[in-house]
């Protein structure tokens, strides 16, 4: 029974991707179309970012260096700026400093190299709104961009709910209907990541990054082990679905 459901879902997922030409869930009721200035000197990466943002329903404008970026922001107000730190000439921090000095308060998402605590601290100190460490999953970028795009920052929810599955983030209790389910530390983190963006497909690699701060040698193996444990605990009808070659998603029905 599960098998057919998953297969069926998988088919629909493919269909959806076909029509949307992307992995990104279109259930973006809380976000709107944004004009985004992308400042990234690496052409290939910049193209990927722009394509993903376009697929996500936004309108990216691409520049490859800091001076051009500053020129653009002078004549036009963008909804968001995706800013790489390492840029030739005027670097990302310099751009950010200049923006804030000229009282341009456009939200800024900086792209840093992973593990650079000082970059992160410097960036946030200069007034960046969020940061993303390279290499990042493109879906993660879209999720961050959408989060920043919300007019009013979302109040952190206390409960996440999918169908009759309710996860309380405060006391870490999980309920399926009236049945209470105990979760271990990793099961909780994993389920929370999935339930925060229902319907979105997470690759195993991305889930690894979400649950473990640093790479884990057995990461993929562990993701699979924890997913199967979660499935057993949640029981039927199944909510966590395998999307072949892509990963996992949680949703009530396809």
């Amino acid at each position: 029974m599960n098998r057919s459901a998953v297969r069926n879902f998988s088919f629909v997922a493919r269909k959806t991707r076909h029509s949307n030409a992307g992995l990104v869930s279109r259930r973006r009721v809380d976000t709107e179309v944004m004009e985004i200035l992308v400042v990234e000197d690496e052409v290939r990466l910049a193209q990927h970012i722009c394509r993903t943002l376009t697929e996500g329903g936004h309108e990216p404008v691409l520049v490859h260096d800091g001076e051009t970026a500053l020129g653009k922001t002078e004549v036009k107000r963008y909804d968001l700026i995706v800013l790489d730190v390492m840029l030739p000439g005027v670097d990302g921090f310099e751009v950010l400093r200049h923006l804030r000095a000229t009282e341009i308060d456009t939200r800024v998402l900086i792209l840093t190299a992973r593990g650079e605590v000082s970059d992160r601290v410097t960036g946030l100190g200069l007034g960046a709104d969020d940061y993303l460490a390279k290499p990042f999953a493109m879906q993660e970028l879209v999720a961050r961009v959408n989060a920043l795009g919300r007019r009013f920052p979302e109040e952190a929810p206390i409960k996440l709910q999918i169908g009759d599955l309710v996860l309380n983030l405060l006391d870490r209790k999980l309920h399926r209907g009236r049945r209470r389910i105990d979760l271990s530390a990793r099961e909780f983190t994993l389920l929370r990541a999935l339930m925060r963006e229902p319907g979105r497909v997470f690759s195993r690699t991305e889930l690894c990054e979400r649950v473990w701060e640093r790479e884990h040698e057995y990461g993929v193996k562990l993701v699979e082990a924890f997913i199967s444990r979660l499935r057993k605990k949640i029981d039927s009808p199944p909510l966590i679905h395998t999307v072949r070659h892509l990963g996992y998603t949680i949703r009530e029905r396809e």
Partner: protein
Amino acid sequence: MRNWPLRWKVALYSALLAVAATLAGATTTWFIMRHAEIAAFDRRLTTDAQEFFRDVEHFEKGRTNSGPVFNEIFVPLSLRKHLVEVTDASGAVLYLSARLRQPFPHDGIKQFHNHRIEGRRVRLAEFSENGLTLRAGDDLKEINQIGRDIFLAMLGAIPTVLFVTLIGSAWVASKAIAPVEKIRQAANRITAQRLDQRLPVPPTNDEIAGLIEMLNATFERLQRSFEQAARFSADASHHLKTPIAILRADVEEILADINCSESTQARAEGVLHRIHQLSSVVDNLLLLSRADAGRVELAKAEFELGELLEGVLDDALTLAEPLDVTVEANIPKHLRLNADPIFVGMIAQNLVENAVKYNIHGGRIRVEARAVNGNVEMTIGNTGDGIPRERAGQLFDRFFRVRGGARVPGHGLGLSIARELARAHDGDVELVRSDERWTEMRVRLPHAA
């Protein structure tokens, strides 16, 4: 004495030198005084003798030519306090001074010379005129009285000299060393985090100023190469991360492309995972290069170890399940650390991972923690074959693996990273025990204040 402070060494040497100089001065003075006193004595005695003979002659002139007539009155007063003997031509003693109890032994030497009489050293001379012979002299001791007194006085001053030079040169030495002490304190402040500090150059143009300028130049070079290394690691990080990010985006695109065959997508999924591993190896190498430069950035916070270990232990349980390995944990509540939680998580993760990796079927893992002298000690033990004794020394080397090959995954960076991270917290990771039954590692980290 080797461990004495420099100023006390200088003080002691100076004091000894001063004593030696005083001794040498006293001895020299004694010699010179002795020489001068003897010469003066000789002159005085000669004059007195001449006066005596003049008196005798004058008196005789007014008398008959019957021979020398001696009278005690002729002996000058200044001569009487010495040793004096007067004899006539036949050798009969006419006069002995009060201090001379018996006549001089006659040695026939005319001029002044030293003679030993009854164990005393006596300086004497013989004068003859008109059949009368005058022998006069005195104890050398009596002659050299002033020289000896000065000598003894100088010896008596030695304790004072010793004391004054000791204190004085200690003071001088500490004045001289003061700039050196300042250099030491300033150099102490210059660490990897504060390499831009420089020693203050004094306005003088002496050796100390030269030394400070030389040291500052060295620090300058050190700072430059340090910054180069740090910038290199930061640059390398960025330059490696961007291509990896592109690679990842490419692969994600293949995964999303429904026109690709399933087998292509399956391979793409594998590649995505490899990219993830590659990026973590890059992270680890950068972390190690930063540790080498002493520039691990710690985002310290206070947290409870038990809460942090929850996830790590959860992983261990999950991984251990198919191997039938039991996991025991004994982490007291409220054991708080003041450390970088991500790094502590990595340390624990690396060690627990090894405990699973090198375990045996049906084996055991035990994780314990306790507070010891302001530190938190965590021990992670596991059953297994253990580390061969001859290879235990290499255990924390980079890329070292006890057993390689496909059976055991990993890069051999886990333990060296765990140790570097612990050391960045002023802690450490050590191998406590390893034999064919049980292997145990101990982590030491700072306790929260």
